[in-house]
């Protein structure tokens, strides 16, 4: 079992990428860790705060913890659809860290994807954003141009 610090280090170094915001705008989405006790969770959010993914990282597969976490964190205004939750195993040979870890080491990623195309069908849809200032998640209309949570406005 990795310590959270070591796991975070691996994620920062090997699972960190800047990519185009997923459907919402033309800015870049990047990795931001969320404050979570005893677990490692991060978002990919764009320069306007839209969250395209929330990802849980662990050394075991724990989808039910992740789903409960999302429900607790996002409340019932955001629907967590099973089809938007996916898992992936990262091995030493595909991460390029065979020299540091044994063959049976792995990182499990659980992704929740906030599907912009699906949401945007409803003009009043609510979506998850990440405050550009305090990095907390907040919910507002998908079409909103605001990027700050209530406390940071």
């Amino acid at each position, binding site marked *: 079992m990795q310590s959270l610090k070591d796991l975070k280090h691996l994620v920062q170094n090997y*699972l*960190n*990428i800047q*990519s185009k915001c997923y459907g919402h705008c033309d800015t870049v989405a990047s990795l931001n860790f969320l404050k979570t006790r005893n677990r490692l969770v991060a978002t*990919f959010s764009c320069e306007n705060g839209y969250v395209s*993914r929330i990802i849980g990282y662990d050394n075991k597969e724990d*989808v039910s913890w992740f789903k409960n976490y999302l429900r607790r964190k996002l409340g019932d205004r955001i629907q967590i659809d*099973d*089809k*938007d*939750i*996916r*898992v*992936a*195993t*990262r*091995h030493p*040979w*595909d*991460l*390029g860290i*065979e020299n540091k870890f044994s*063959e049976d080491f792995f990182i499990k*990623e659980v*992704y929740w*994807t906030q599907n912009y195309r699906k949401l945007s069908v409803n003009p009043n849809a609510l979506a998850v954003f990440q405050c550009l200032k305090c990095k907390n998640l907040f919910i507002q209309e998908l079409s909103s141009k605001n990027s700050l949570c209530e406390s940071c406005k």
Partner: protein
Amino acid sequence: MQNKKLKAIHVVYANWCPHCMPTTVEPMKKLALELGVPCYLYDIDTDLVSKADELVKKYGDWSDDYIIPQVFFEFEDGTFKHVLTGYSEGVELTRKAVNNLLNSELVKSLKNK
């Protein structure tokens, strides 16, 4: 690193997916050729989807709408090993992972069999 002899490479993929085509499928076909084993491709938009689902459910990263590509090594003793799943973070990471796999000790050890 791998004592067993490789029998085949299996790739679950879709033609429309940039993580699959050509990023993963082409290098896996080439690797199979180099190792002298067949490369079985399971396009999830064809009838092969049931076989693809079975592989992913048994050995891979299963969820309702699972991530593609997923690559599996089958060994002569009948065992399967999940070796790679596409990186939803971005195609660049999938490409890097495929390259890492090709240059890995795991693959090198299979070449020496």
